[in-house]
């Protein structure tokens, strides 16, 4: 039976106490977590090293200003951190961090990974007009009821991987009804246990409430179907694709917000894919017209080919799209089918090698015969 650190306080207060303990006790030198940046509810990731600043920390705040996996990668790109640092991440953020580490874009050494059973986050836009503040109470209400909170990002509404995979600790949220009375932190690893020693609250043995979780999973499954239909992507075809991406500015914001797109210079922004006059001429003669900048669909499908197997469906791409293309929904849909095919769940296991780096001689034998 798993060990749980139980703090007799509301979950938000409780986790802050725990973080305070980590920093005070000197068990960690710094804490990566969300911090208020202003009063209308904008938050940003910060590496907090001092208790005063920790007061402004809002680890569970339902916004994702940037995928923290990308942040941790930037933090450890040159080398692993020598001092221990705690990081509070959402499951999809840990997964993207792991995918990046697999690609040598960072190191997990000396990190204490704290995650939560994730209730999803609101679209970034809702932080702009302070709307998010109004939404918060509703959010926690619906989480207590084990429902999908309305107004959270479509991607989150349909996410089935809200239980973290490789976290040392998991803050129980979605499957706990009494989040406003107690804060339950599951200690998944020995590392987690060590760090929880002498922490406020008491260690108990408790199972995670699996029914609640499976229930929510199912709710999200059904929501997925619903949203696919609403967006008209459940049954795609060439014409609909053109339609969906018609508004694309080829600003490539999606790929730059994507934690998996780690390339220094994206293949699709390199000189090699820039049209030369001859290519324009040819296409113009063939079709009588050509869209400029060209290659919108090529970029998006090409990007799927590059990162689809590792897409964790974190939803950042949709959040930053200036023309509201449901990028994330489409990419995670493609990602799902690719990942099923390769029996690969991105970010689940650091040991599992990326489908491109390996193969099985016996697989897909029917193809090519």
């Amino acid at each position, binding site marked *: 039976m798993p060990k749980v650190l139980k703090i007799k306080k509301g979950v938000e207060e409780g986790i802050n106490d725990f973080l305070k303990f980590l920093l005070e006790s000197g068990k960690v*030198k*710094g804490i*990566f977590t969300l*911090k208020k940046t*202003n009063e209308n509810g*904008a938050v*940003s*990731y*910060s*590496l*907090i*090293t*001092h208790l005063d*600043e920790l007061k402004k920390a809002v680890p569970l705040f339902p916004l994702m*200003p*940037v995928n923290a996996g990308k942040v941790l990668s*930037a*933090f*450890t*790109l*040159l080398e*692993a*951190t*020598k001092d221990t*640092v705690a990081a509070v991440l959402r499951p999809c953020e840990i997964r993207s961090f792991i995918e990046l580490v697999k690609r040598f874009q960072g190191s997990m050494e000396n990190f204490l990974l704290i995650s939560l059973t994730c209730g999803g986050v609101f679209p*970034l*836009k809702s*932080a*702009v007009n302070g709307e998010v503040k109004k939404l918060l109470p509703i959010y926690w209400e619906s989480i207590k009821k084990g429902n999908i909170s309305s107004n959270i990002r479509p991607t989150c509404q349909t996410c089935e991987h809200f239980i973290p995979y490789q976290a040392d600790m998991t803050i129980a949220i979605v499957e706990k009804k009494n989040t406003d009375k107690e804060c339950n932190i599951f200690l998944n690893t020995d590392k987690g246990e060590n760090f929880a020693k002498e922490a406020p609250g008491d260690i108990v043995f408790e199972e995670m409430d699996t029914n609640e979780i499976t229930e929510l999973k199912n709710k999200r499954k059904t929501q997925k179907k619903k949203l696919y239909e609403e967006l008209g992507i459940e049954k795609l075809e060439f014409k609909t694709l*053109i*339609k969906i991406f*018609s*508004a694309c*500015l*080829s*600003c490539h*914001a999606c790929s*730059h*917000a994507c934690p998996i797109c780690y390339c*220094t*210079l994206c293949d699709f922004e390199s*000189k090699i894919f*820039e*049209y*030369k*006059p001859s290519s*324009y*001429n040819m296409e*113009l003669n063939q*079709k*009588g*017209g*050509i*869209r*400029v*900048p060209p290659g919108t669909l090529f970029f998006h499908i090409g990007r799927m080919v590059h990162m689809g197997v590792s897409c964790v469906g974190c939803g950042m791409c949709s959040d*930053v799209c*200036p*023309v*509201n293309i449901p990028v994330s929904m489409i990419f995670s849909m493609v990602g799902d089918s690719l990942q099923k095919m390769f029996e690969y769940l991105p970010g689940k296991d650091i040991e599992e090698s990326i489908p491109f780096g390996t193969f099985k001689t016996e697989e897909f034998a029917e193809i090519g015969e």
Partner: protein
Amino acid sequence: MSTVQNEFFKKPKKGAVLHAEGGIHKAILDFLRKSLEKKCFDALFIPVKVHDTDSYVWVLLKDKSLLNEANPLPPVISVQGGRALSTLTKHGEMNLQIAAIMRPCEIRAVIELFKLKQVSLNNITLISIDCPGAMPLSDYISNPKEMAKRFNNLFETWEENESLRPICIICHRFSLSSLLPSISRQSASVELEGIDSPASDIHIGLVGGNGEKIFLMPVSSKGEEILEKLEIATEDSLEDWEIKEKELRDKKENKRKKILQELKAKIEGPKKFVAVFDQCINCHNCMRVCPICYCRQCYFDSKTLRLSPEVYLTRAKERKSLRFPLDTLLFHLGRMSHMVLSCVSCGVCEDACPMNIPIAQVFCIVADQVQKSFGYVPGRDRREPPPLRFFQEDEFQEVEMQYKKTISREETQNA
């Protein structure tokens, strides 16, 4: 150094007044269609509506039937025309004569990119239009029909309209005047022989036409030739347009002064300035949609800025906490220093910002100041070199530190 002169030369006194029964859009498209038929051009570069959607994309077209869905002046700026034209021509021109029709701010971006060798204009004829502004991209996306309606009303009244983008409300370069070289070109380095170097070749005036007529005027000699070839007589007076344009410009300039003042007050001082950007998530969209930011790989995205975890931790310890992603402000200020002299205030950066940071307006304030002090109006003149490409020995001496005297005094003391 002397400030910008507001007189312009070679502003066409006469042009062709075309009647627009079917609305100005139709009139413009008819003109363009004709120019294709008469083989003045082999192809047009113009925004076209993607079939059964409300999105406009730039299309290089030969096939006239595509003109039916084209819109020379769509309600929004999706991709900035300058950026579009540079993707089309940066690797050299095609063996085609192309006419590109754009908003003034887009034309000016084209000219800046032309100076930066990102656009080739050899086979390109630039046609500019009076611009009533554009709708915010996100508003349009969420409610295209309504926004389109509001936009089209503008053509009669030309009254500024709150649903326009803020940057458009204060735009005083909506017409030809911003596309003509000034007499005192502030360049020592270029010789002025045959100074036929306006930004656009043909201009289409709409102001003062009340949506019933359009004013077609040749600007460059190239433009003249084309109109001749089209057998369009340019004998009509342009007075209606001229007067209304001037009137509107003055009105807008006043408004602009007022609003910029208020805005300035809002952002001045480090605290306020930081507050403006504190929501920035470092997505760099502003840079990616910006026509002037033409670098394949932005310096601020390059890994050269990466440091080791220790450095970050020490930095964090010094200020009790360190925000990630890092250096958001460095990025904006850095980008500013790179492109602000060429900033044409087209506002696409603001349109693209997922956090609704009034970035175009902030850049506009700075651009105003900097460009004034260099007497530079980006994109008004094909031959005017970017200010940092040359210098004059006697300029800006006022900024030099006056240390000589003090030193000499000490010297005398020592003596």
